[in-house]
């Protein structure tokens, strides 16, 4: 019974995820279609080139722009299913290849940031929930400050203090772990602030529950009560915020990578935007939507592990 409910739930989520991706693909198609004239032109129109009508027609045929709209749409969806995101017209290489080349750097950065954000948020949240007034006031103050500081300002402050002032880390570049520290914290801190805020307010509710009192009555130490009993209940709230976390990280990489002069998906997106390289922009966005959908699906399955009640509900 439980297995069936679980399978049903995951099935529905998958359908919803595919729906979101289909919608994103459709929007991408129309965006590309609306700007396709430029695409055809840009392949032949270099500096000062004056393509004849015949050449233009040829290009249009090559790109399949002479086909009826629905055929182009179906072809486009087919391409996407094969992992073909089209071709960047600035860089003259497949979008998928461009993303693949940059992915490693960004994954490193984002993975580090997730770990830091979770560890810091859980640590701070668990240890400061339901404490004295001044503890609460200080931590909420710091969280408020971090959450309302733009990512690039956080990065700049870290740069000024730890790079310019203390010479602990390099200003930019990407060789070795040392160059990864400041970008990772820049990306992690705003997310950390929001997460620990949410976690603490959730924990303050949980710590009022009778089972916490039971645990304390058994003579369990306060720290153990917090980490072993309260955290599991409050962590559910963190899981539901995974979408927000991914969004924050993906958006944050654009700024972080630009600020620290690093290669990666964010830098790729920024260069594509500046150059008006629409296929590349659309490709990166579809890729991000895919990441978002997959992560949410995985998290949804995890959710049922952390909180078995959701399946039976």
């Amino acid at each position, binding site marked *: 019974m439980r297995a069936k409910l679980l399978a049903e739930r995951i099935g529905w989520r998958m359908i*919803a995820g595919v*729906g*979101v991706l289909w*919608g*994103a693909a459709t*929007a991408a198609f129309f*965006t590309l279609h609306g*700007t396709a004239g430029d695409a055809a032109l840009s392949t032949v129109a270099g500096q000062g080139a004056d393509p004849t009508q015949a050449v233009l027609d040829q290009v249009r045929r090559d790109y399949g722009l002479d086909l009826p709209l629905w055929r182009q749409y179906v072809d486009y969806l087919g391409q996407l299913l094969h992992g073909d995101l089209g071709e960047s017209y600035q860089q003259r290489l497949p979008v998928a290849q461009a993303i693949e080349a940059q992915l490693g750097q960004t994954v490193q950065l984002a993975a580090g940031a997730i770990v830091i954000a979770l560890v810091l948020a859980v640590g701070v949240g668990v240890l400061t929930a339901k404490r004295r007034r001044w503890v609460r006031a200080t931590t909420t103050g710091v969280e*408020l*400050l971090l*959450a*309302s*500081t*733009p*990512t*690039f*300002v956080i990065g*700049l*402050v870290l*740069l*000024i203090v730890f790079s*310019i002032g203390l010479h602990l880390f390099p*200003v930019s570049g990407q060789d070795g772990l040392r160059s990864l520290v400041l970008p990772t914290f820049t990306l992690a801190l705003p997310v950390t602030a929001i997460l620990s805020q949410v976690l603490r307010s959730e924990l303050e509710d949980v710590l009022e529950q009778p089972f916490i009192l039971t645990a304390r009555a058994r003579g369990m130490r306060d720290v153990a009560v917090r980490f072993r009993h309260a955290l599991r209940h409050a962590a559910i709230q963190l899981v539901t915020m995974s*979408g927000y976390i*991914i*969004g*924050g990280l*993906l*958006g*944050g990489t*654009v*700024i972080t990578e*630009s*600020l620290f002069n690093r290669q990666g998906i964010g830098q790729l*997106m*920024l260069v*594509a*935007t*500046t150059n*008006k*390289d*629409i296929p590349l*922009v*659309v490709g*990166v*966005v579809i890729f*991000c*939507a895919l990441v*978002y*959908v997959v992560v949410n699906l995985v998290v949804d399955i995890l959710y049922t592990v952390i909180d078995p009640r959701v399946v039976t509900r």
Partner: protein
Amino acid sequence: MTTTAHLPAPRGVWLRSRLPRPGIVLAALFLLVVAVAAVVPGLLAAQDPLAIGTDPGFLPPFASTAHLLGTDQEGRDVLSRLAHGTAPSLVMGLGATGIAVIGGAVLGLLAGLGSRATEAVVMRVLDVVLAIPELLLALIVIALLGTGTEHALLAVGVATIPYYSRMVRAQTHVVRRSGYVEAATGLGIHQASVIWRHVLPNAIKPVLVLATIGVGTAIAVGASLSFLGLGAQPPAPEWGSMLAAGVQYISVDWMLVAIPAVVITLTVLSVTVLGQDLRRRAEGRTAR
């Protein structure tokens, strides 16, 4: 009716709940200065923000009475550039949030009051848009329209529409079931008029409270776009682009980065603090 309503509140509690907290007063005062700077920048800084004068560059703050906050890499007065950069930032915050709230109200009302099919279509479309991070959405808009202050403003506004749409829809669902809407409908008042006079004002109020916090976020995102070179273009005085220019000289004169960074952060923080206070008051009223 609860009996506690008749009991006098303890004196300390009464005072504490009526007096605004010091943080809120500070935030309001800071925003007042910012607002003055936006309307009459000359009042705070008499110098031309664009003039490349005879004064040396990289002058530290407080070193000269002519340049209270020092000069930048080209010898321009930092205080003047900050003051003149205020208006674009506020316009960005208010304008982008305005676009987002109007767009959100239209879509939210459509979803909240339309047929089930309309609602499903609107909500699924929003689901798709919500799968894409805000900043990336803004970048798409800029990639399509090109860089520049107006495009950045539009980009930030459009990127946050889904967020407000969802809130308006949720509020609409609450409001349309309330007694006064049913009464108005029962009196035979035209539907459009019921929506305009009763549903919209009541559904939008809580959304506007949250939108004050959104103004702060929009200022931050707008500055980020300028920082990335996609919004305001140099030499125009704007906080984000001042930072971007300063970063190149960060090892020479980090003050050029620190000053605008502090101003942006204080502005966003003040807006957030006031917004949260507004929300607390609004929730307190509805909870009672």
